[in-house]
């Protein structure tokens, strides 16, 4: 294991050695991430979990969840963070770069092609109407995702969390304020509130 391995202690403990396979090469990482990135609808995460945990057995399910949890609370696209952190965990910086470029470059090329097609044919009436209908559906899909994420907060009756959620929604969605100042104000407040509530519970 290279010395810059982020968490050398975790694979050694708790997980039977047979549960995971030896780390793949850099090229294998690139192609594995390219494949899961292009796999289809329903988000890359689903395919990433399947490939990493079930198919290649590079991580156990717990290790995957742990890596994903970290990437979820960091800013930026979660799956992009995951590719970098996961690749680096297995193969250092070269592994991180391989997974990162595998995840991004092939779909980015497709997207660029689609953007060029849209620039040329986007004004065709039939296409305009189809895309209008698809975007209505896409908004609905996002609505379902957000609803799913909201349920735990509502179920646990986390009043402070719901208030923070509403304030951010009003500031960004209704007042259309810029993201950076809103978050620079909201993040410290939310951390302070969470910290104080947690201390009250444990006291």
């Amino acid at each position, binding site marked *: 294991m290279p010395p810059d391995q*982020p*968490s050398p202690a975790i694979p050694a403990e708790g997980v039977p050695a047979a549960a995971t396979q030896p780390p793949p090469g850099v090229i294998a990482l690139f192609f594995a991430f390219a494949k899961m*990135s*292009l796999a289809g*609808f329903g988000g890359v995460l689903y395919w990433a979990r399947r490939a990493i945990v079930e198919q290649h057995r590079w991580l156990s399910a717990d290790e995957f969840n742990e890596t994903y949890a*970290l990437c979820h*609370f*960091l*800013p*930026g*696209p*979660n*799956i*992009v*963070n995951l590719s*970098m*952190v996961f690749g*680096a*965990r297995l193969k250092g*910086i070269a592994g*991180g770069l391989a997974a990162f470029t595998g*995840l*991004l470059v092939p*779909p980015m090329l497709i*997207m660029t092609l*689609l*953007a*060029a097609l*849209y*620039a040329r044919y*986007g004004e065709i009436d039939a296409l305009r109407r189809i*895309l*209008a*209908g*698809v*975007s209505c*559906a*896409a*908004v*609905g*899909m*996002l609505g*379902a*995702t*957000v609803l799913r*994420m*909201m349920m735990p*907060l509502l179920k646990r009756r986390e009043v402070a969390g719901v208030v*923070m959620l*509403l*304030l*951010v*929604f009003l500031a*960004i*969605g209704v007042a*259309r304020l810029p*993201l*950076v100042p809103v*978050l620079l104000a909201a993040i410290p407040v*939310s951390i302070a509130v969470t910290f104080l509530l947690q201390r009250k519970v444990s006291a």
Partner: protein
Amino acid sequence: MNTNANPVWTLVLTFGVMSLFAVGGANAAIPEMHRIAVEVHHWMTDKQFADLYAISQLSPGPNVLIVTLIGYVVAGVAGALAATFAMCVPTAVFAYYVSRLLARKSRSRWPAIIQRALVPLSIGLMSASILVLAQTADRSLLAALFTGAVAAAAFATRLNPFWMFLAGGILGFTGVI
């Protein structure tokens, strides 16, 4: 309309900063993308923005690649590449260093507290995304009803999103919504 600066640098700066503030991922940054692309720089219309969101959802790859489409509209292939890497590289580097830091002192309770504190913020941002996108995409009462129906169906069932997109495409093509 636009500033005199090279639009590629505007893209790099815009998405480079956004990258580090996209708490909750790409879908949480949609209102900010819309604000900058439609309201601040007038790079595109509301309808075009909604179209790009639809294309990004129809295509394979991470959701974040809507920035590739925005970048292309602004500055062609160079813009597409610049926007994508500006949105993805800073956060990936940040994630790499944080993961190494956390591996060293994993006893701290701060990661858990920060994580808990950020969850409501990211859901608030994504709720704002729904509002902004609905205002651009749902041009009629029927369209809004269809969006609501898709949300309900996707929430209650495990139906493949493909069918929702297909239904939307057909209803749009036939002029119902």
